[in-house]
C-alpha cells in the first residue's frame, strides 16, 4: 500500500497539522518508506487471534467515591494563553 499526496493532505487535515507543499512531499516519501516496512506483518496469518490492546489484562474498576480537593483556579489558569474573569478564553468554535 502506498499513500498519495492527496491522502497526506487529507490525513494532515484529520490530524490538524498545517503542512506546506514541500512538507507534504517530504512526508509522503517518509510515510511510504514506513508503510513499505509495514509489509512484513501483512503476510502473517492472524486468523482467530484476539487483538491485544493493552500490556496486561485490565478490567474496569470502580473507584471509591470520595471527595478530593481540586487544583486552585489560579494555578490552572496560570498556563492559559489567554484568560478572563477566571475562565479560559478560547477561539470561537461555532461560527454563524
Amino acid at each position, binding site marked *: 500500500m502506498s499513500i498519495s499526496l492527496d491522502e497526506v493532505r487529507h*490525513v494532515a487535515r484529520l490530524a490538524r497539522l498545517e*503542512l506546506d507543499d514541500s512538507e507534504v512531499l517530504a512526508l509522503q516519501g517518509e510515510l511510504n518508506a514506513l508503510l513499505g516496512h509495514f509489509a512484513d506483518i501483512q503476510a502473517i496469518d492472524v486468523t482467530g487471534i484476539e487483538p491485544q490492546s493493552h500490556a496486561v489484562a485490565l478490567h474496569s474498576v470502580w473507584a471509591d467515591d470520595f471527595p478530593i480537593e481540586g487544583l486552585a483556579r489560579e494555578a490552572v489558569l496560570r498556563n492559559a494563553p489567554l484568560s478572563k474573569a477566571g475562565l479560559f478564553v478560547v477561539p470561537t468554535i461555532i461560527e454563524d
Partner: protein
Amino acid sequence: MLTRLTASELAAKLRAREVSAVEVAQAHLEAIRAHDGKIGAFLHVAEEKAMAQAAKADEALAKGEGGPLTGVPIAIKDNMSTLDIPTTAASKILEGYIPPYNATVVEKVEQAGMVMLGKTNLDEFAMGSSTETSAYQFTHNPWNLECSPGGSSGGSAAAVAGDLAPLSLGSDTGGSIRQPAGLCGVVGFKPTYGRVSRYGLIAFGSSLDQIGPFARSVEDAALLSSVISGHDHHDSTSLPHAPISTEGLKDGSLKGKRFGLPKEMFDPSIDAGVLESVHKAIDALKAEGAEFEEISIPEIRLGVTTYYIIAPAEASSNLARFDGVRYGPRHEGVGHVGTAEKTRAMGFGHEVKTRILIGTYTLSAGYYDAYYTRAQQVRSMMTAGFNREFARFDGIVTPTSPSPAFKIGSMNDDPMALKILDYCTIPANMGGFPAISLNCGLTEGLPVGIQIIGPALEDERVFQLAYCFEQVLGASPRPPTA
C-alpha cells in the same frame, strides 16, 4: 568525589552524617555547572528547589528519620510533571509550561526525601532513540562526546553516566530507558506495566509507557523502583500490587537458573562487537552455574513494525490535546481549526509530525484493520510467545541494543536505521514485562548492555537475577573523568 559514588554509598555517608545533604546537592549542582555545557543532559536545573529539599533532608537525617534514599539527588526526565518547575517534553509546543501539580513519581521521590536536581533532555515527546529530536539541544554521551547517549531518555542516562546525578528517572515506551542505559554503561530498568503510576507523565503510547530508574548499580535501581512503585488511584491502569520489594535482592544464586536466548536477537544484524561482549558475559555466567538455551520467538522479527504502528496510533490520539487552547503558545489561524493547525505546525518537530500522521493514517477508515488491528494481533502472538518461554525459563537474555553508541547525526539519512535500535527492547513493552539492562563490557571503548526480561509482575525476580549477573560481570564501568 561525591559525584562518582553510587546512591547507596552516598546514602550510607548521609546516614552516618559524614556529609550533609546540602553538601551533596552543592557538589552535584557544581558538577552540572562545570560539565553539563559539554554533555547537555539538563533542560532545566532546579537549583532553588534542590537546595530547599536538601535542607529538609538534613533535618530528617539529623533526627535519625528518613528512608534509604533520603538526601540523595535525582534527575527527572522532562516529560514528567513537576510542580512549579518547567516541563516541556523537549517540545516547543510546551515551551513555558509550568505544571500546577507533581506527577505521582515526583511526589513519591519527594516524600522519600530525595533532592531533585532538575529536568533532563529527551527526544521530543520521547519519540526517538538518540535524543536528537529534542527541540532544544543535543545530549552527548559521556563516553564519547561525539556520540549520542541513545534515547529517548538520553539526558537521564547521560546525567547518571556523566557524574551529574547518582540516580534519574526515565520513561520507556519501546526501550527508552534500557537502550540509553546500555549505550551509556549504566543500569536501566523498565518495570512491569502498571507497577509504576503514569499519572503526570506526558503520554506517548499509553498501553506501552512505563516509568523506571537509571542507576550505577542494580541495588540502586531496585531501591529507586521500590520508592516510585505501588498502586495509585490517579492512574486507572495502575495495578493493585504492593510496591516493588528489595527484600531478598542479594539472596539469589545463578546455580541451576535457566535462561532462554532468542536466536532472533543473536543474528548477524546485531553488531559483532556487541555480540562478542554478550557471548563473553554468557560464558562467565555459565561458569557460575547458569544454564542457557537457544530459543526462537519468530514474532520478535515483527516487533519493530508492530511497535511503529501501535505507538504512533496511540500518540496521534494522545497528542490531540496540544491545540494551543489551554496551554502552550498559540498561533492564530483561520477559525478554530486553522488555529489548531497552525499552532501544531509551529509547535511540533518533524519526527512528531511524522508519527502523528502515520498514526492517524493507520487508524483511519479503510486502513484500521489492515494495520492497527493486525498489529494488535501480532502483539498478542508475541506476548504469547514470550509467556510460553517464561514457563520454561527463569528469564530471557538478549543484547540491549543492536549497536553501541553512534555518532550524533550519523543516522539522519535513514530514519528506519534509528527505529531498528529498539529491536531488542520492544517486546517487553508489548507484553508489559519487566526488563533490565546492565553493562557487560566495552566494544571499541563504548559500553555494551545485556538485557534480562522476566514475566509480568516478577520485577523482584528480574532484580535478583540482575544482581547475580552484576556480581559476575562487575560493577557499571565509569567513563574517564572530564
